[in-house]
C-alpha cells in the first residue's frame, strides 16, 4: 500500500517553504517530487528596474546566508563589464569576509544537520560557537548576517589593527572548537549510524547530474572554482581542495568541517599578507558600463554560483541571470532520495539527505518539481491533493 506524505511547505526543520511529495511504501521512500517554487520572487525582473548601485542590495537578499558570495559575484560582474581592476588590499579584504561567511554558513549547516538527526546538544553547541564568527562579521562589516561589505570598485570599510587582533583570537578559539566537533561527529555512534551510507551519490552520477560544491567534492571529484578559476585573491592565497570519496551524508559533513579549517588558515594567511594601500577606487555615483555581457563565477558555501549580466549602455542592466548552487544540486538530491535496488531510503532519512546538500531554497526560488521516472503516473494531480488535504485539515466549527 503506497501513499503520499506531503512534507512542507511548512516544516519544522526546513526553514524554507518547500513541498516534497513522497510515494512511500511503509517506511521506504519510492519516489519524490520536490517543489521549491514557493520562494520565487521574480528577482531577475527586479534587477531590470534598479540601476547597478541599487542592484547590490537586491543581490544581497537573494540568499541570507551566502550573501557575501552573491554581492561578491555581482560586484565582480560589473567590474568585469567596466574593465576596472580593484586595488590588491580590497581583494584581500573581500577574501577575508567571503571566507568568514563560509565558516558561518558551514557551522550553521553543521548545527542544522545535527538538529535534523535529533542531536539537539550538538546543534546548541555549534550555534553557540557560530556566534563568535557573527561577532567578527559584525565588527568588520557592521551587520551580523547580511554583510553589505562589497561595493562596485572595492569594499566599504577597512580593517584596523585591533580588529585584526580580534579576528586572530576568535579564529584560534574556532579552530579548537571545530576540531572538537569533528571528533564528536567521527566518534559518536548514533551520528555514524544515521549518516553513513545514507544518501549515496556515485561519482559518475554526480558529474552527469552536474552537482556542485561540497556535494560534488564528497563524491571524490576535485573541483572548486577557487582552484579552477581563481577570482579576487585566490591565486595568491594557498589552500587545498577537500575531497572525501564515501559519497554519503557522512562524507558531506566531513568535507564541510575540513573546509572550515581550510578557511581559518586562509583568513590567517591573508591577514599576515594584507597589502597596504587604499581599499576602494573612486566610482561615479551613476555607473554606466559600456554595452556588452559578462559572466562571473564564485565558489559560494553551497557550490558554484554563476551571475550573467547583459548591459545595453544605460544605467540599468538589460538582463541579469543568477544560477544558484542549490538549483544545480536538486537533480542529484532527487536521485539520492529515491530507493533503487538494495539502496533503501527511509522516511526518517529524508530530512538529513535533503539537508545534506545544505539547501538554500531562497536561492533556488526558480526550481519546481522534477519527475524522476517519467513513466510514473501519479494517483492524484497536484490540485486534487491540495483539495484533499484542504478538506481533511479544514477546521471543524
Amino acid at each position, binding site marked *: 500500500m503506497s501513499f503520499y*506524505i506531503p512534507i512542507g511547505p511548512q516544516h519544522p526543520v526546513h526553514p524554507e517553504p518547500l513541498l516534497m511529495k513522497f510515494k512511500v511504501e511503509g517506511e521506504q521512500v519510492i519516489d519524490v517530487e520536490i517543489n521549491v517554487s514557493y520562494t520565487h520572487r521574480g528577482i531577475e525582473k527586479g534587477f531590470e528596474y534598479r540601476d547597478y548601485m541599487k542592484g547590490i542590495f537586491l543581490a544581497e537578499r537573494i540568499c541570507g546566508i551566502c550573501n557575501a558570495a552573491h554581492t561578491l559575484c555581482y560586484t565582480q560582474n560589473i567590474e568585469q563589464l567596466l574593465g576596472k581592476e580593484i586595488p590588491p588590499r580590497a581583494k584581500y579584504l573581500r577574501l577575508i569576509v567571503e571566507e568568514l561567511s563560509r565558516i558561518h554558513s558551514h557551522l550553521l549547516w553543521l548545527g542544522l544537520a545535527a538538529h535534523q*538527526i*535529533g542531536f*539537539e546538544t*550538538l546543534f546548541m553547541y555549534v550555534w553557540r560557537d557560530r556566534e563568535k564568527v557573527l561577532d567578527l562579521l559584525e565588527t568588520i562589516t557592521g551587520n551580523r548576517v547580511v554583510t553589505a561589505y562589497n561595493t562596485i570598485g572595492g569594499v566599504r570599510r577597512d580593517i584596523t589593527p585591533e580588529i585584526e587582533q580580534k579576528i586572530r583570537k576568535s579564529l584560534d578559539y574556532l579552530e579548537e572548537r571545530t576540531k572538537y566537533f569533528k571528533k564528536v561527529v567521527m566518534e559518536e555512534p548514533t551520528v555514524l549510524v*544515521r549518516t553513513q551510507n545514507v544518501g549515496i551519490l556515485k561519482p559518475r552520477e554526480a558529474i552527469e547530474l552536474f552537482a556542485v560544491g561540497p556535494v560534488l567534492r564528497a563524491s571524490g571529484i576535485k573541483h572548486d572554482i577557487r582552484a579552477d578559476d581563481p577570482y579576487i585573491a585566490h591565486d595568491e592565497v594557498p589552500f587545498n581542495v577537500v575531497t572525501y570519496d564515501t559519497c554519503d551524508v557522512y562524507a558531506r559533513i566531513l568535507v564541510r568541517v575540513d573546509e572550515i579549517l581550510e578557511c581559518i588558515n586562509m583568513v590567517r594567511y591573508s591577514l599576515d599578507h594584507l597589502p597596504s594601500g587604499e581599499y576602494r577606487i573612486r566610482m561615479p555615483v551613476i555607473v554606466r558600463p559600456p554595452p556588452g555581457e559578462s559572466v562571473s563565477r564564485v565558489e559560494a558555501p553551497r557550490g558554484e554560483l554563476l551571475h550573467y549580466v547583459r548591459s545595453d549602455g544605460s544605467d540599468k542592466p538589460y538582463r541579469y541571470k543568477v544560477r544558484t548552487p542549490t538549483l544545480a544540486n536538486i537533480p542529484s538530491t532527487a536521485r539520492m532520495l529515491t530507493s533503487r535496488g538494495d539502496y533503501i531510503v527511509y522516511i526518517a532519512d529524508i530530512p538529513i539527505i535533503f539537508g545534506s546538500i545544505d539547501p538554500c531554497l531562497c536561492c533556488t526560488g526558480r526550481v519546481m518539481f522534477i519527475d524522476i521516472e517519467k513513466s510514473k503516473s501519479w494517483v492524484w494531480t497536484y490540485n486534487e491533493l491540495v483539495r484533499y488535504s484542504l478538506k*481533511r485539515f479544514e477546521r*471543524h466549527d
Partner: protein
Amino acid sequence: MIEVLYKMIEMILFPGFAFIGVLSLLYEWIDRKFYARLQNRIGPLYAGPHGILQPLADFIKLLSKEDIIPEGADKFLFTLTPILFFAINLLLTLFLPICGTTGVISFTGDLIFFVALLTMISILVYTAGMASTNRFATIGAERAVLQLIGYEIPFMLSIVSVAISSRSLTIKNIVESQSSIWHILGPNFLAFIIFAITAQAELERIPFDIPEAEQEIVAGWLVEYSGKKLALFRLGKDVETLLLCGLGATLFLGGPLGPVVPGLEIVFYTLYFIVKSIIVLLVLTTLRALFARLRVDQMLVLSWKYLIPLSLISVLIVRVVF
C-alpha cells in the same frame, strides 16, 4: 467507615493524585532545566522563581486553548484516548511505595499487573495515532508499535531479574528485600542499565523518540491534538516519567528505605523516594542529551541484537547468584 475515608484521603491527597500531579510538574521542570543546563542554556526562568511554574503555565494555557477535532477523525476514540492515557498513568502511580514500604494499593503479584498496564499505555499511543486519520499520525502510530516490539522484552526481563533476586512478585517484598543491599549494587547493575535504556524508549525520549520525531513527521501521533486533549497527553507523559523514575527507584535503589528518625517515618520515606527517583530522572535526562535519534529499523536491530541477549545474561547471573 474511617478506614474507607482514610483510604480515600490517601488516594486523593497525599500519595495519590494531587501529590503526584504536583510532583510530575516538578519533574518536568527538573528535566527541562537539567537538559538546558547540559546544552549550556538557562532553560525556563521567568515563570515563577527559577521558572518552576513553567510546566504549570504550559498546562493551564493548553487547557484554555480551543479544542479542534478534525473532520475525518473518529470522534469517540479521539476524545477517549487522552482521558484513558492520563487515567492509567495515575492509577499506576498508586502502586509506587512512596510513604511506606507499600503503595496505596498493593496485593500479591501486583508487579505483573503494573507491567501489564504499562504496555496498555503504548497500545493507547497507537489508537491515538490511528484515531486522528492524519497521514503523519498513522506513520507515528506504526512506529510506536514497532518500537513497542523492540523494547518490551528487555524491559520485562530487567524487571524479572529484580523479581528473581528478591524472590517475589509483589513490590512490598521487593522493597523489603533491599533493606540490606540495594539491587543496583548487587548483580542487578546490568539490569539497571537495560531498564534505563528501555525506560527511555517507553517514554519516547531522544534516542528513541521515533514516534514523535519532530523533524521527520511533524509531531508524530500527537499532530492532531490541541487544547485540552494535548494538555491531558502532556500531563499524562509527565506522570509516566514520574512513574518510571519511581519504578526505577523502587526496584533498584530500594524505594523509600533508608535511615529514619522513628517519629517521622512518612516524611523521611517520601523524601528518600523523591531523592532517589530524581537521581533516576537525571540519568534519563543525560541519556536524552547525549544521543541523536535512531531510525526505527536501527532501534529494532539494537534491541533484538544487543538488549535482549544482555537482559538474558543478567537474568542468568541473578539466577546463579541467588
